[in-house]
């Protein structure tokens, strides 16, 4: 159970939500997406952001492995939120699909089956889908789980670039504290309640930050 938690994400921020397994990260993600109502308090969306306009990237094991779907079909399903009750996609939707595929360098995979892709390619496709769903905020739930170290670093770079160049705020749920202090503008350290919330610089200087970062590098040395 997560309790007494208060934080905010501003325009163009890059927030890392870090914490151990069972610290309440997934519950928080569900609440942010509106799939689970918080028992107390509320989540406010400013600047005309609507709930369905959050670009969500689920954990990889949520997505089926033997599913017959082309890359194009998967990316296009990101446009669904803005469709409402209209049944078909418009030319503008299709343009958006192509632009996002180009941005992530997966245009040449367009006709391939999603199930035949490598782990890193799959995450790019799902990221393109999330980008179709949003103009303002990406919510990524442990996006690098199961990726090898090189692909992981590429993926972090890519998200950093999207945050800077496309001016999209990013909320990244992760247990990778090292990459958090490297890329984040803000950090929320979760352990059923907020152990820390502030900018990444402050986190590095804080007691808890030193403890966790120091702990990790000590482990690496041993």
């Amino acid at each position, binding site marked *: 159970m997560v309790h007494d938690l208060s934080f905010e994400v501003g325009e163009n921020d890059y927030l890392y939500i870090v914490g151990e397994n069972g610290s309440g990260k997934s519950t928080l993600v569900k609440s942010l997406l509106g799939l689970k109502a918080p028992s107390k308090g509320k989540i406010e969306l400013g600047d005309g952001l609507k709930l369905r306009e*959050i670009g969500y990237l689920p954990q990889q094991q949520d997505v089926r492995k033997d599913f017959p779907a082309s890359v194009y079909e998967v990316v296009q399903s990101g446009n669904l939120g803005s469709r409402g009750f209209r049944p078909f996609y418009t030319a503008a939707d299709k343009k958006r699909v192509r632009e996002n595929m180009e941005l992530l360098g997966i245009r040449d995979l367009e006709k391939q089956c999603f199930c035949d892709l490598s782990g890193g390619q799959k995450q790019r496709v799902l990221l393109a889908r999330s980008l179709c769903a949003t103009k303002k905020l990406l919510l990524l739930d442990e996006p690098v789980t199961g990726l090898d170290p090189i692909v992981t670093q590429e993926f972090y770079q890519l998200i950093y670039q999207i945050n800077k160049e496309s001016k999209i705020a990013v909320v990244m749920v992760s247990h990778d504290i090292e990459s958090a202090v490297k890329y984040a503008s803000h950090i929320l350290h979760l352990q059923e309640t907020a152990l820390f919330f502030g900018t990444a610089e402050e986190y590095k200087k804080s007691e808890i930050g030193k403890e966790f970062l120091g702990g990790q590098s000590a482990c690496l040395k041993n």
Partner: protein
Amino acid sequence: MFEKLIEMFSYPFMVRAILVGVMVALCSALLGVSLVLKRYSMIGDGLSHVGFGALAIAAAANVAPLIFAIPVVVLAAVLLLRISGSSKIKGDAAIALISTSALAIGVMVISMTTGMNTDVYNYMFGSILAMSSSDVELSVILSAVVLVLFVLFYHKIFAITFDETFAMATGVKANLYNTLIAVLTAVTIVLGMRMMGALLISSLIIFPALTSMRVCKTFKSVIINSAVISAICLFLGIAISYLWGTPAGASVVVINIAAFIIYSIIGMIKNIKNWPLT
């Protein structure tokens, strides 16, 4: 042989059987892709048993079979989804529970009224003589509604089949569409079950989807292929049933098995060709 096939179309009951059969085959093929991928294949089997029970009661009470059976099976479909949603009884167990209950009630009703006769045999294994002309009208209208709804909600059905959590996060009411799929499946099963038989109607849902997935790798091509395969297999099955006097349901399933084997072989050849690349 060819003359016999032409002759087949001169009988009104054959034209009715082919018309309704092809419509039902199209509906079940489309819905089947989503059901198979969501691991709900057995729902078709469960609902057909409920349909059997409902038809038995309708016959005993002397009411029009379709008018009575459709609401009952739709209700069962919604109930099945609700039960599988709650964690107390798991989905597969819930289906087995409801389907065997309905079958038992159906058998009890039949044995207390008409007794086990040819009608019961036809319910179980299907008959091309099952469709009266008033049934045809209702069947064609309802299958047309199923097809139109499927096309209108195609993209949403893709989204909730592929990734329900993401679909919900983008504001798609997944529960609503799951219920819609279940209701459409229920209607399709009731329409097709007297021709295909209660024991075999679920094959119309499962076979075309699995067959086309041997070869096709995109959702759209799987959907289109399933629909085409399903309609062709149904037509050939009915023709066999007419030519050799075999039960309609079993004949259609045999053709579907043949199609599945052919597609599996094509799929394997394709994989071998691509093998050095992957």
